[in-house]
């Protein structure tokens, strides 16, 4: 009994320590974004007691260009997610509900997955040169195109898993009722995988929103920069406005935290590309 009690205390202490380590640095950055400059780096550090101000947010998104970066991030993420979901869902349906000759379905699925295994630095060099050749460098369009390709294998694998869980009898019943194959997909199958569709789309949004290397390489000016690149460009300069940086970073992180909470149930599955069903 005593031993049980001790292990329980230990377990809670460990859980608490892990949470503090995970969250405290992020919380600290958020306080910097809300502190007046005089409080920001006072010693000893002020963790709770300070007078909050929104001046850094107004500065970052009102007077500086972070508002524009934010808009680019929103547009690019939404468009890339929509394109990848449309194409990838159709492909996933083909791979899960049709038997192709010579096991082509298996080969295609693995080939699609393998394109996601390349380290990004390998493809970013030729993609930069290709975008330069077609004069798309420094445009939002180039990012939408690249992120669509980036998200596609993910959508195909996730949706293939979700489609695979739908009993085929349901679809066959719809076809007996006179629906065409695509009619059955639209009226019967898609509504059944709606939660899977939503989770997959949210993952695509997260991936596109967080992406850094391609946006860094493919864009150069305020007109096409995403929020992460805009922040990185300022943070590596010497004179750092920490309040402004923290405000921009806080805004960059908020939608992601909301999204992550929304797909918590599917997180394990999404993060392991469907390999582990959590």
């Amino acid at each position: 009994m005593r031993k049980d009690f001790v292990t329980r205390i230990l377990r809670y202490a460990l859980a608490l320590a892990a949470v503090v380590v995970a969250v405290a640095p992020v919380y600290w950055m958020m306080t910097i974004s809300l502190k007046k400059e005089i409080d920001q780096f006072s010693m000893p550090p002020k963790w709770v007691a300070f007078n909050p101000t929104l001046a850094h947010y107004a500065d970052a998104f009102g007077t500086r260009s972070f508002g524009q970066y934010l808009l680019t991030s929103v547009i690019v993420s939404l468009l890339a997610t929509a394109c990848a979901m449309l194409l990838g869902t159709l492909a996933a349906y083909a791979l899960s509900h049709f038997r192709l000759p010579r096991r082509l379905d298996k080969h295609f699925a693995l080939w699609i997955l393998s394109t996601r295994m390349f380290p990004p630095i390998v493809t970013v060099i030729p993609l930069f040169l290709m975008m330069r050749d077609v004069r798309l460098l420094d445009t939002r369009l180039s990012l939408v195109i690249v992120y669509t390709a980036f998200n596609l294998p993910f959508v195909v694998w996730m949706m293939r898993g979700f489609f695979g869980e739908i009993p085929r009898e349901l679809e066959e019943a719809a076809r007996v009722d006179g629906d065409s194959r695509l009619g059955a997909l639209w009226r019967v199958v898609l509504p059944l995988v709606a939660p899977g569709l939503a989770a997959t789309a949210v993952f695509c949004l997260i991936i596109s929103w967080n992406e850094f290397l391609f946006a860094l390489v493919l864009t150069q000016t305020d007109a096409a920069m995403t929020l992460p690149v805009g922040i990185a460009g300022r943070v590596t300069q010497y004179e750092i406005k920490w309040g402004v940086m923290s405000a921009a970073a806080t805004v960059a992180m908020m939608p992601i935290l909301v999204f992550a909470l929304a797909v918590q149930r599917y997180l394990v599955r999404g993060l392991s590309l469907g390999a582990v069903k959590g």
Partner: protein
Amino acid sequence: MQRLHGNNSFSSGGERALPFLLLAPTLLVLLALSIYPLVYAVRVSLQTGTGAGARWSLDNFTRLFSDGFFLSALLHTLVYAVVALSFEFLLGLLLAVLLNQEMRGRSVFRAALLVPMMLPSVVVGVVWRLALNPNFGAINGTLKSLGLNTESLTWTASPRLAFLSVIAVDVWQWMPFVFLILLAGLQAIPQEPYEAARIDGSSTWQTFRYITLPLLKPAILIVLLLRTMDLLRVFDQIFILTEGGPGFATETISLYIYRAAFRFGNFGYAAAMSFVLLIVTNAISLVYIRLLQKQETA
């Protein structure tokens, strides 16, 4: 398209073509934006000189072996991957095993642990630049208020500490990922073998060694595979935290390739280096995949 007519049970020709029509856009996009770029990169890496003066040669590849920057970046990457992976795996496994029990507030705990790994890497960079700043950062500030001398703790400003710092940040961000996948794996293990072990009077260690570990092996292999691939290609956090510095102390392969291509415009050489990274990554992941397949057939 002639292959369609093989062993296929669908009746009409339209039905037979349908899966290929549905697949075509995805396959085309991936051909154009994943496969063609690789071919393009091979061509670039096999050429030296530009424009009319370009000629075919293996110079970009032979140069690799005598480039000190490349070799040290390779070494940095391997050390970084091995050290970070060890810590992430051991800590993640420990947490997962200890918390694989009903306990109050576990969902809150899980949600809080998700925060680091979901963050955009840029935000991770800003968070840790703030926390690790030697003069006004939260870490040295807290240590100072506890009465400790922090003068020698310059973190990202000294070469050796900088390397440890970027590794620590990686562990901070990705240990929760290992934890989450392993916890899911643990929860999928059935209860019966544990009950049998209890009846046999096995010790906690024996139960862990001979029941938990073997049954957890598929999840372990998947998490190691995914982490290894990500660690070998690491770029974002280091770029924002240290830009590979001070000096070149934290420059990994991806950072050096970036520098060669986009600072010096040496695309051919950068492409050649990126193929070395691709081959190393693929060779290592192939080992994991073989192990996984063996696991499945066993």
